[in-house]
């Protein structure tokens, strides 16, 4: 065997190990979009708190602010999941990868444990009136989910997770700035991350 062939062979083994164990069809642009949804949600939150007598509040009169926030949060979550899934499907098609394969299943499983735990905990805190902790808890558990899932996808996800956890801890310490930190974590960080992944892997 020629030396060049040997190098090529070893290189291909390495690539295959990487390709077979990582789900790389997550779209960077979907990260940017999801960040924008979160920023809009944050603005809505500010608006509702700062100016209680707005059209939206009159429309939703009878709904307590926490309930209103919950509805908006669930709306953002649904929209984000849908965007992420649709754009990943498109990217997977382009990469000739299926979206439902062994790596995406592992990724989903790793992410869902911290995510569901955090979600349930946030609902419990909501029902007991610990509103000031919720923004931080959501950030922390989301960050943990990303860190757990990062072994099955881009390494950038690990750093996104760590940053989310830091913001979450800050939000728990400074509950007055919870909404701002939430917007920073789910909005600004997603946009920056999405842009980096798009630049690095997609353009």
């Amino acid at each position, binding site marked *: *065997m020629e*030396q060049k062939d*040997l*190098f090529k*062979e*070893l290189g*291909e*083994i390495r690539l*295959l*190990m990487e*390709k*077979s*164990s990582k789900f790389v069809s997550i779209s960077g642009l979907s990260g940017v979009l999801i960040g924008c949804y979160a920023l809009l949600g944050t603005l809505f939150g500010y608006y509702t708190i700062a100016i209680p007598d707005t059209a939206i509040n009159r429309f939703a009169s009878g709904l307590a602010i926490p309930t209103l926030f919950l509805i908006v949060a669930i709306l953002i979550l649904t929209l984000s999941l849908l965007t992420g899934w649709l754009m990943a499907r498109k990217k997977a098609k382009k990469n*000739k*990868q*299926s979206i439902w*394969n*062994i*790596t995406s299943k592992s990724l989903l499983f790793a992410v869902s444990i911290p995510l569901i735990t955090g979600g349930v905990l946030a609902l419990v805190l909501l029902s007991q009136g610990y509103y000031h902790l919720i923004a931080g808890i959501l950030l922390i558990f989301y960050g943990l989910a990303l860190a757990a899932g990062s072994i099955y996808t881009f390494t950038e996800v690990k750093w996104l997770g760590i940053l989310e956890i830091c913001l979450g801890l800050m939000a728990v310490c400074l509950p007055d700035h919870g909404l701002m930190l939430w917007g920073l974590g789910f909005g600004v960080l997603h946009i920056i991350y999405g842009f980096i992944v798009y630049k690095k892997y997609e353009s």
Partner: protein
Amino acid sequence: MKLDLSLYDKIFENRVRLQIMSVLAVNEEYDFNSFKEVLEVTDGNLASNLKTLEKEEYIVVEKSFVDRKSNTKYKRTTKGLKAFENHLIALENLIKQQYK
């Protein structure tokens, strides 16, 4: 210097078999369809090479059913992983040899 080829494994001279083992070295288990997707090979080619590795006891096969469809999973054995690592060392040594 005489070249030591004792670590070189004839089983892995076949590209697909080497690729299968590379995948199983970093993944605890892998299923047939995922192999097909990542290696871009035909059913027959993949199946026959998986069979060879199974006969060598380099991999084990776990058959199960999900929604009445067969869902076959493959795992590496300790023997298989050792053989794969040795083969990589042999390839490395070959490169080093050619550098001298």
